[in-house]
């Protein structure tokens, strides 16, 4: 999200899902929407059927490409170049939105200069897409308005992912496709509550509502708020005065520090990093070194094997709370059945640990009380209460109890100090790994429609398992011929970090030089071989570009 914060001042999907219906153009880049966000995928196909221009850019021929008006296939890792190329064409063809740039954006002089490096020859060479096709897509996006842009992990999971996000933002700003209904820049958030987890400050650099941990005023606010403690103690405890002023560690860094022996105890709630983290071997070695590891989950996951204590958690159907979806809508979760066995809701377990430690501020009887505390410390959730979100939810920012919520962002001004957006000058950065003689193919990860993340839930649903029961390495007919691989045979996929065994599937959806796997199957743990090279700002690993070699077995 860091990229959007630089450009607009805040990072979240700018518009609402329903607004897809009103868009004249939909540009989907680096997102396999019909698999990862199926009901949005349905809506996009429906919009295309009803006459919207559907533009798709993806390294692979994803299903949405079949119904697209224009489909281009940039090489993995070349999205920044593609987007900057589009910007260059738009300026040269005088298709930019001059009024919007003048009124809503900072001076674009530097940005314009940075486009000089992106000549048609360079762009075509790097992306592998003919220049005239890039121009066509750019022209439609710039002129058939409102145009809405969607992206997902295909843009962010790179060592230069933050640049990718800013490139997307540049294109939207240049054409004035933001701050209006049915346009905007829409990062599709992967997991059901990843937006909410970020909003709630499950991040090493932010308190709830993206308030910085390094800001003394913010720290003081939370010391005040938390010191008093909701209902516990005598109601007049002294403020907590020991909130850390140091940035915390990110997910990937946490495992590094565990490995180096600096982190000794870990509290892991509902995650299975052994399947979902890049370079999972490293994660395994780190977990072995921990002094004390608590895992709280529904099932004994691959990761839970390394725990000292496993706490049984209740499922979403057994507890109350809220999820915030990709369009910033806070929605209710309600218990339908009692918790299985002695399992307990995660909010109860965390509270009970804190209380056992004698800590105040964790005396909650019902999640609605937690939401009341959230609203009191999180400005964007200030007006959210269970009563108000009874039926259809509310989209943040929702500042107070009379605020109607916000269907689309940046209407009158951007969330940057001067209210103006910034077009960021960018340069081309190669992916951390590129194909070479030893590892001649680029592996990019994907998701299946039928499974979810490490599949601890979906693989326990018989029918979903039947629809999609094992991992496939997808590769092009040309590469299959080149490496002597037959459709359906077992192969080994080697990278600089390890090897996995998997069935090969020869398919046209991968262009020559590119192969693809999901990461849902423990039998073929893709992330044992992916590249953990981090984007320096967003700290997202480059799981979309890993150099690999495919070998026949035996």
């Amino acid at each position: 999200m860091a990229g959007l914060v630089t450009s607009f001042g805040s990072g979240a999907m700018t518009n609402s899902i329903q607004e897809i219906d009103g868009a004249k153009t939909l540009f989907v880049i680096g997102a396999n929407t019909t698999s990862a966000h199926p009901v949005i995928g349905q809506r996009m196909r429906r919009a295309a059927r009803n006459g919207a221009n559907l533009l798709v850019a993806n390294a692979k021929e994803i299903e949405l490409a079949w119904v697209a008006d224009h489909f281009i296939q940039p090489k993995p890792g070349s999205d920044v170049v593609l987007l900057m190329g589009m910007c260059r064409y738009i300026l040269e063809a005088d298709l930019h939105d001059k009024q919007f740039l003048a009124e809503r954006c900072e001076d674009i002089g530097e940005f314009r200069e940075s486009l000089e490096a992106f000549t048609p020859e360079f762009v075509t060479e790097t992306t592998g897409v003919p220049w005239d096709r890039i121009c066509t897509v750019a022209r439609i996006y710039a002129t058939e308005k409102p145009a809405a842009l969607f992206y997902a992990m295909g843009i962010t999971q790179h060592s230069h992912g933050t640049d990718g996000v800013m490139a997307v933002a540049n294109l939207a700003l240049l054409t004035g496709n933001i701050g209006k209904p049915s346009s905007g820049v829409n990062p599709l958030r992967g997991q059901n509550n990843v937006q909410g987890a970020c909003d709630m400050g499950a991040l090493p650099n932010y308190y709830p509502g993206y308030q910085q941990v390094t800001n003394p005023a913010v720290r003081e606010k939370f010391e005040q708020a938390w010191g008093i403690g909701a209902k516990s103690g005598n109601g007049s405890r002294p403020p907590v005065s020991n909130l850390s002023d140091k940035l915390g560690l990110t997910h990937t860094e946490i495992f590094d520090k565990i490995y180096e022996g600096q982190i000794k105890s870990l509290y892991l709630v509902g995650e299975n990093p052994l399947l979902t983290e890049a370079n999972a071997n490293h994660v395994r070695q780190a977990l072995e070194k921990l002094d004390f590891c608590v895992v709280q989950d529904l099932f004994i996951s691959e990761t839970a094997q390394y725990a000292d204590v496993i706490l049984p958690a209740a499922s979403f159907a057994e507890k109350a709370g809220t999820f915030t979806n990709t369009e910033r809508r806070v929605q209710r979760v309600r218990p339908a059945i009692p918790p299985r066995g002695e399992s307990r809701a995660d909010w109860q377990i965390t509270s009970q640990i804190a209380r056992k430690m004698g800590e105040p501020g964790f005396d909650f009887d019902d999640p609605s009380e937690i939401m009341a505390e959230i609203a009191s410390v999180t400005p964007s959730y200030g007006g959210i209460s269970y009563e108000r979100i009874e039926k259809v939810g509310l989209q943040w920012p929702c500042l107070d109890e009379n605020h109607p919520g916000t269907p689309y962002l940046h209407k009158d001004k951007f969330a940057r100090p001067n209210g103006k957006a910034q077009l960021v000058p960018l340069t081309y950065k190669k992916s951390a790994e590129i194909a070479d003689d030893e590892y001649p193919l680029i592996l990019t990860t994907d998701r299946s429609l039928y499974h979810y993340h490490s599949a601890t839930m979906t693989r326990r649903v018989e029918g979903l398992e039947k629809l999609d029961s094992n991992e496939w390495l997808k590769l092009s007919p040309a590469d299959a011929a080149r490496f002597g691989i037959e459709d359906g045979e077992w192969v080994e996929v080697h990278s600089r970090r390890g090897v996995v065994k998997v069935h090969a599937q020869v398919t046209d959806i991968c262009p020559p030089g590119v192969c693809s796997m999901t990461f849902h199957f423990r039998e073929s743990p893709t992330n044992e071989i992916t590249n953990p090279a981090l984007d320096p700002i967003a700290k997202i690993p480059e799981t979309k570009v890993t150099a690999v070699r495919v070998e026949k077995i035996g």
Partner: protein
Amino acid sequence: MSQEAKSIRLTIDGQEITAEEGSSVLDAALANDIYIPHLCHHPDLKPVGACRLCGVEIDGRPMTTSCTTAVQEGMDVKTDSEKIHHARKTAMELLISDHHMDCLACAAANDCALLTDSAYLGIEPDHLVRLRPSSKGLPIDTSNPFFQFDPNKCVICGICVRTCDEIVGRGTLEFIDRGFGTTIGTFGNKSFMESTCESCGECVVRCPVGALAPKRPKFAAREVKTTCVYCGVGCGIYLGVAGDKIVDVRGDRERPTNEGSLCVKGRYGFNFVNHSDRLTKPLIKKNGEFVESEWDEALELVASKFADTKGDEFAALASAKCTNEENYLIQKFTRAVMQTNNVDHCARL
């Protein structure tokens, strides 16, 4: 986009009603609790006027299909007359003669448009069975794990074909000729499993009879409005519960997020909740083995170990699968109790 729709006044069976401009006579009647039989009409889909059951008399013109006729100011509609009844009955008998009637064993029996409409027309169930003595004998397609298709029950209303096309945008289904006359099937006449079908079940929920029917027994005793647990779309759902088990899911039409639509995971992927692998007791590793423990013992152990590692020796990983309230508490616990900012969650997008 949407301007205030104009309201139109018309008369149906002598009753004066108002309707929005652009709505059909059928919609207007149904919205005012005036029943007109209909089979190929579905409020989510464009009307096609295929089954002819909805025929009415408008300003003296007999047998106009009310689903394809837009309301007009001052219109005078008669939904029933000798002539209309006769025409409908003929249309109905034609449909039934092609429909395998085994209502007792049919998943749709409680909720079948064919039964409702024949009851309206006064066709006795016995007569129904006599009208339709034998099935077409076409094989039932059970290949999809979540639903089945019995072509013998299909009344060729085309709702499934139009749903897959207009709503899902997938276009898997089409009308095909199987020698016995028309029925529906997948493109290229493959089984559902081998077709381009993505198992969203949108066609199944709209099939007005039992031709496309879910495999699971769906008798939910009560429903709970909640939100799908899988992806960031956050579709609104109703969980159907029987006893202490979830037995059904349907899309929540009220929620702007999905307006009733679901994908295969949201509609059919809830069974993990009932899985026997679910952890039911805390486990503590003792001599390399996990042993069941009481909550109190487990919590004591966790609390005492955490108390020893306050500060930057501690880290917490919250989850994008947990609720907002839970993520909030985990970061609060990490910051206020453990005195470190080492908290993150899995997917950093």
